[in-house]
C-alpha cells in the first residue's frame, strides 16, 4: 500500500471507529432509558449524528475543507503507539490535543489544526513524536502559552506553520528535539503590536541539545529564546520584525550559525553565556529602535564570534562585560556605530572589516583587548615594510561615549560638525584607548553586487540637467550684459 493510501485508510478507520463508538454509546443510552418517552426521538437523533459523522468522514475523504473542524484528540487516541496518523490536507481539525504516546502525525499537504481553548493546540508528552506538515492556528493570546508545548525528548517537528497571538513552540525540560523548516507568525496586529503582547516563536527552558534549523519567525517577541538550556543548535533560521531575533540567556555552549535577522530590535542577543559559537550570521537593518543592535554580547565569556555580517544597524556589535571572546572575520558595514565596547576585557578582534559606518567604533572602560589586522575604511595608514598592514595604529576615541555616558541628552551631538573640534581638545593621553595595532590597509570586502542601473542613469540625467540649467541661468541672468 502506498503511504498516502495507508494514511487515508488509517485516518478513515480512526474516524470510523470514533463514529462507531459514539453510535454504541447512544445505543446503550437508548436501552437504558425507559421504553416509551423520547426513546424513538433519541434513536432518530443518534442515527442523524452517525449519518452526519459518516458524511463528514466521506466529505473529508474527498478533501473538502469547508465543514466544521473534527476533534483531533479522539483520532490521536485511536492511533496505536508507533503508528502514523495522516490528516487530510486542507481539512480542519480541532485542538487542544495531548499526544502521550510515540506516534507520527502528518498530512500529505497541509492539514489545519485550530485551537480555541486556553490550552496548547498540541502538547507533546511522549518521546519520539513526529509532527509534519501541519498548519496550527492558535487562538490564545497569553504570550506565556504556546501553540505547541513539548515536554518530552527526541521529537521531530517539521514543516509546521503556526499562526498565533501567543507563543509558538515551547520546549520545557525537553531534550534532543528537532524543530525544522517551520514558520511561526505571531502578532496579528503586525509590526505595530507591542512586544509585551507577543509570545516567543520558539522558547526553550531547561531543554538541552535541541536543534532549531531552517525556521522562519515573523512578528514575534523573540524569534528563538533559549534560557538555561545547553548545547542548543540554532542554524539557518530567519527572524523578522521581532524584538530579538535570537536570544540566549544563561545557557552553555549555544551555537548560532548561518541565521539571518532583519528589522528586529536586536538580531542576536547573547547574555550570561560561556562558550557560544556565533558564526556566519547576517543581521540587517536593526536600526529603528533606540536600543537596536546587530549582535549584543552581555556577560559573554570565551565565545567565538566569526564570519558574521552586520549591516545597516544602529550598532553593529555591542559588547558589555564581555571577556576573552574571539571575534574574527566579521563584516561590520553601514551601521550608525560599528562596534561599541563597554567594560569588556581580554577580547581579540581580528581580520574584520569596518566599512561605511557613520562612527566606526567606540570604547570605554575596556582594557587588554587585542585588535589586529582589521580593515577600517576611514583610515589612511602607512605600510613601510610592504606586508599589507599599516605600521601606524588605528585609535578609537572614547570621547563621545564618555560624554554621553553621564548625560544621555548629549547624544544629539552624534557626528555634529563641531564635535571633532571638541574631542581634539581633550585628546591628551591615548594609552588607554582601544587601538588596532596592525590595521589592514586593503580589504577583500565586497559590497553587495546589486548596482541600481536605473538609479544610476536617472542620476546621470538629473545631474546633467541640473548642471546645464544652472549654467544657462548663470549665463542668461548673471553673466550676459543685457
Amino acid at each position, binding site marked *: 500500500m502506498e503511504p498516502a493510501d495507508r494514511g487515508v485508510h488509517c485516518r478513515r478507520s480512526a474516524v470510523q471507529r470514533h463514529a462507531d463508538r459514539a453510535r454504541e454509546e447512544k445505543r446503550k443510552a437508548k436501552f437504558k432509558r425507559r421504553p416509551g418517552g423520547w426513546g424513538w426521538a433519541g434513536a432518530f437523533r443518534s442515527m442523524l449524528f452517525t449519518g452526519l459523522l459518516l458524511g463528514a468522514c466521506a466529505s473529508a475523504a474527498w478533501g473538502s475543507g469547508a465543514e466544521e473542524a473534527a476533534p483531533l484528540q479522539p483520532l490521536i487516541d485511536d492511533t496505536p503507539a508507533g503508528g502514523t496518523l495522516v490528516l487530510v490536507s486542507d481539512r480542519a481539525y480541532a485542538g487542544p490535543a495531548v499526544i502521550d504516546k510515540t506516534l507520527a502525525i502528518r498530512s500529505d499537504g497541509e492539514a489545519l489544526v485550530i485551537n480555541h481553548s486556553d490550552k496548547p493546540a498540541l502538547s507533546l508528552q511522549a518521546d519520539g513524536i513526529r509532527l509534519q506538515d501541519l498548519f496550527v492556528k492558535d487562538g490564545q493570546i497569553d504570550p506565556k502559552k504556546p501553540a505547541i508545548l513539548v515536554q518530552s525528548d527526541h521529537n521531530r517537528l517539521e514543516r509546521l506553520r503556526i499562526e498565533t497571538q501567543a507563543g509558538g513552540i515551547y520546549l520545557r525540560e525537553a531534550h534532543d528535539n528537532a524543530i525544522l523548516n517551520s514558520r511561526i507568525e505571531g502578532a496579528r496586529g503586525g509590526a505595530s503590536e507591542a512586544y509585551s503582547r507577543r509570545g516567543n516563536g520558539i522558547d526553550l527552558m531547561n531543554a538541552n541539545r535541541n536543534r532549531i534549523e531552517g525556521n522562519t519567525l515573523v512578528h514575534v517577541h523573540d524569534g528563538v529564546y533559549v534560557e538555561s538550556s545547553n548545547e542548543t543548535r540554532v542554524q539557518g533560521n530567519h527572524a523578522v520584525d521581532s524584538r530579538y531575533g535570537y536570544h540566549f540567556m544563561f545557557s552553555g555552549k549555544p551555537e548560532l550559525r548561518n541565521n539571518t535577522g532583519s528589522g528586529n530590535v536586536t538580531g542576536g542577543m547573547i547574555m550570561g553565556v560561556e562558550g557560544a559559537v556565533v558564526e556566519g550570521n547576517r543581521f540587517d537593518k536593526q536600526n529603528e529602535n533606540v536600543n537596536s543592535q546587530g549582535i549584543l554580547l552581555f556577560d559573554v565569556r570565551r565565545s567565538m564570534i566569526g564570519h558574521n555580517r552586520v549591516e545597516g544597524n544602529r550598532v553593529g556589535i555591542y559588547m558589555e562585560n564581555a571577556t576573552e571572546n574571539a571575534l574574527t572575520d566579521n563584516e561590520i558595514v553601514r551601521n550608525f556605530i560599528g562596534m561599541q565596547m563597554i567594560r569588556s576585557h581580554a577580547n581579540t578582534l581580528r581580520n574584520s572589516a569596518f566599512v561605511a559606518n557613520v562612527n566606526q567604533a567606540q570604547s570605554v572602560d575596556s582594557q587588554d583587548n587585542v585588535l589586529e589586522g582589521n580593515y577600517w575604511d576611514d583610515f589612511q595608514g602607512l605600510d613601510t615594510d610592504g606586508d599589507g598592514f599599516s605600521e601606524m595604529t588605528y585609535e578609537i576615541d572614547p570621547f563621545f561615549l564618555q560624554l554621553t555616558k553621564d548625560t*544621555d*541628552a*548629549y*547624544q544629539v551631538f552624534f*557626528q555634529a*560638525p563641531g564635535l571633532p573640534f571638541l574631542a581634539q581638545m581633550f585628546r591628551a593621553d591615548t594609552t588607554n584607548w582601544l587601538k588596532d595595532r596592525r590595521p589592514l590597509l586593503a580589504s577583500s570586502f565586497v559590497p553587495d553586487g546589486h548596482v541600481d542601473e536605473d538609479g*544610476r542613469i536617472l*542620476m546621470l540625467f538629473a*545631474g546633467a540637467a541640473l548642471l546645464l540649467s544652472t549654467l544657462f541661468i548663470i549665463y542668461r541672468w548673471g553673466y550676459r550684459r543685457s
Partner: protein
Amino acid sequence: MRHTRTIALRELKLGFRNPWAYSFMALFAVFSLALVLIQSKAGLSGYTSTTGTMINLILYLLPLMTLLLGAFSLTAEKEEGGWRLLSSFALSTRAFICGKYIGLAGVLILIVSFGFGLSGMIGAIFGHAFPPSSFGRFLVFSVLLILLFLGISAILGAICRNRWQALTYGVAIWFFLVLGWPTLLIAVLGFLPYLWIKPALIALIFANPAELNRLFLIVKMGGGSILGPEYYRWVAWIERPTGSLVFAAVCVLWILASVGISIILWERGRRSE
C-alpha cells in the same frame, strides 16, 4: 513687487560678477566631487559614513559661504554708495532687502546646484552616484541651510558698516553655530540642573539653523534612533508627515523673522542718515 524683482535680478547679475561667487562655486564643486569619488560604494544610501561626511561637508562650507556672500553684498551697498543712490529713488527698504535676499538666495542656490549637478553626473559616470532620494535630500538640506543662514547674513549686513566688519562677525557666527556649538553648549549646560539640560538643549537646537537642519536630515534619512532614548518621542514625531510640515513652518518663521529684523535695522539706519 516690481522693485523687489528689479533688485533681485540686479543682485543675481552683481552676484555673478563677484569673483567670490566663482571661488565658492569651485570650492563646493571640487569638495563634493572629491567626496563622492573617494567614498566606498557601500555607503551611498541611508545614514552611513559617506552620507554623514557629506552632511558635514555641507555644514562646514555652506553656512560660511552664505554668511560671507550675504553680508558682503549688503555692506558693499553701503561702502560703494549703491544704497545711497538707490535710496534717492522711491524704493522702500522692504523691497530692497527682500530683493537682495531673493537675488542672493538665487546666486547661492545656483552655486550649490552647480556643485551637486557636477558631482552627481560624474559620480554616476563612475558608478559612485548617490541614489536619487539621498541626492534630493541633500539638495533640499543645502537650500534650507542657505535660506536660513541668508536671513542671519541679512541682519549682519544691516549691522556692519563695512566688509571687514562683516567678515569678522560672519566668521565668528559661523564658528559659534557650526564649530564651537557642542563645546559651548556642553560648557554652559553643565551649570544647569540635570533635568533642565534636555529641554534647554532642544530649545537651543531651534535657535541654531545648522543643528536644526542637520538633525532633521538625519531623522529623515532613518538615523533617528542614534539620538538615543532621550529623543525617542521627538524622532517619532519628526518622522511623521506633520513633522515635516512643522519643520517647514519653523524654517519659514526663521526666514521671516530674520529678514524682518534686518528690514527694521536697515530702516533705522536709513532714517538716521
